[in-house]
């Protein structure tokens, strides 16, 4: 599970990879969360179960990532880790573990997940996703 940042002038672009689609999703979430909260340690205080749908791969990934922005803005919830992620054709279920964002000092720059230059695919037996975050 891993990701790297790619060059982009105005925004943040990352490429997340994984041996399975689920791993790739978790890598993408890591890339987003690291951008949102930096490398601060978040305590594992609460769990929330989440289910997200999307009519195609790109929309599913978009909706999945957007959930983390929603959790922070609307629920003041900052994610420490993701567990029990399962993915089917157009649905993804997972559990987020984390803490109230109010307990931490950090700056989240991410306004939105974009579809711009979004790429999802398979390369050399690994799954990858490229995403630009509007910051």
């Amino acid at each position: 599970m891993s990701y790297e940042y790619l060059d982009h002038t105005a925004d943040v672009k990352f490429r997340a990879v994984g041996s399975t689609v689920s791993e790739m999703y978790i890598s993408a979430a890591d890339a987003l969360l690291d951008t949102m909260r930096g490398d601060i340690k978040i305590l594992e205080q609460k769990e929330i179960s989440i289910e997200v749908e999307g009519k195609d791969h790109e929309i599913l990934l978009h909706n999945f990532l957007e959930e983390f922005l929603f959790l922070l803005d609307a629920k003041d919830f900052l994610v420490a880790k993701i567990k029990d992620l399962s993915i089917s054709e157009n649905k993804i279920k997972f559990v987020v573990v984390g803490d109230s964002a109010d307990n931490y000092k950090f700056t989240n720059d991410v306004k939105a997940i974009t579809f711009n230059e979004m790429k999802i695919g398979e390369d050399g037996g690994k799954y990858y996703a490229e995403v630009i975050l509007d910051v």
Partner: protein
Amino acid sequence: MIPNIFKGKLVLFLMDKNDLVKIEEGVYELPMKGEMRVPGRIFITEDMLESIDERTLKQVSNVAKLPGIQKYSYGMSDIHCGYGFPIGGVAAFDLETGVISPGGVGYDINCSVRLLRTNLVKEDLKGRENEIMDALFDAVPTGTGRVGKLKINFEELDSVLINGAKFMVERGYGTNSDLEFTEDNGCLIGGDPKDVSRRAKERGMPQLGSLGAGNHFLDILVVSEIFDKKTAEVYGLLENMVVVLIHCGSRGLGHQVASDYIKLMDEKYGHPEFDRELVHAPIGSLLGQKYLSAMRCAANFAFANKQLITHNVREAMKKFFPEFKMDVVADICHNIAKIEKHMGRELLIMRKGATRSFGPKRKEIPSKYRGVGYPILIPGSMGTSSYVLAGTNRAEEISFGSTAHGAGREKSRTEARANVTYESAVKNMKDLGVYVKSRSHKGIIEEAPSSYKDVSEVVRVSDSLGIGKKVVRLDPLIVVIG
């Protein structure tokens, strides 16, 4: 002139991009090619060419492919790569045959700037800069996802979405004069909260009165140079006067509205092969109208947000200066779609990272400004000068009443992090006599002026083309960034 190191690259890119054609000084054309319905027009100088990358030009040409586009796909002098439209992108659409795209407005709907003049002069702040900066920092929460100071319920939020800044003024958080000098009086008519999802409302509700992050800021500046005395007087700006500049938008609510409608339009109409962000709907369609309504609601949220911040700044400053007074000079949208009349015809104008430039006599502008044009506010990057320009009738002729909106990012955040340290950024600011505060070191590093285009050059292009005439220069004293 183009520095030698760029020459090789430029030739390659020009050949690659099928040459930008120089029309006149400061105006380049991207000729029609493929599915483009109109050519592109970019307002830049030869020196600025080097900073325009291929992705940006591709975005100009993509916008030119949208149905109903009129005359040109425009790029203002601060143009850089965005998503869907470039930042600094402007396009006009016929109301019958045209389309509306959330990608033409952006995620931060009504990201906008408000300028306020005060009854202080620079010397009044001397020796108290740190205290004042801390007080402002406490009065105005920063950082995306950070909560504001006003708690409201869903019913009140709906009223914010309908009424914009007026909601705040009616509750005592501002004056009628604040509304009078704000673009569209701080309220876009025709927003129906039913068109805004529950999710968007949940994201925005806790955030009223907060600044956000990234390039959003609250600055205290001084009027340091006057170019046009008559117009400056009409705007109430005098040399050495302390002014306040606030840059923020519609927070999570606006971001979610954009995201929701990108998906809804995709569902109903599919998306263009060339860019999913340029998904669109006919202006007259139900979905097109619903997006316009939701976008207006988000714009009104942004107006209300900035109004509340204004109030909180007034209260914070009164603790230092009991007689403190602060009046709105102008408040101008950066990311917006509006129906406007140009050359006798109603059109939908989308401005993404661009501002309105309305000259004398336009009925939309306050009567006090009708002899000189509505102000255009061009903030510089952190620690550099900002400018006030006046809108012109010329802009209505050549750019559907539009001009640049800021310095425009030139280097990526990654590059900034690699080349700038927190200590060096703060020292640079200190050397310039600027006090700066942010929630994080990261914000200060990424917003370092070396990552931005030179705002003076951006302003010079607007001024020499006549799409915004220089009125005053503002130099920063205190900077609070998200």
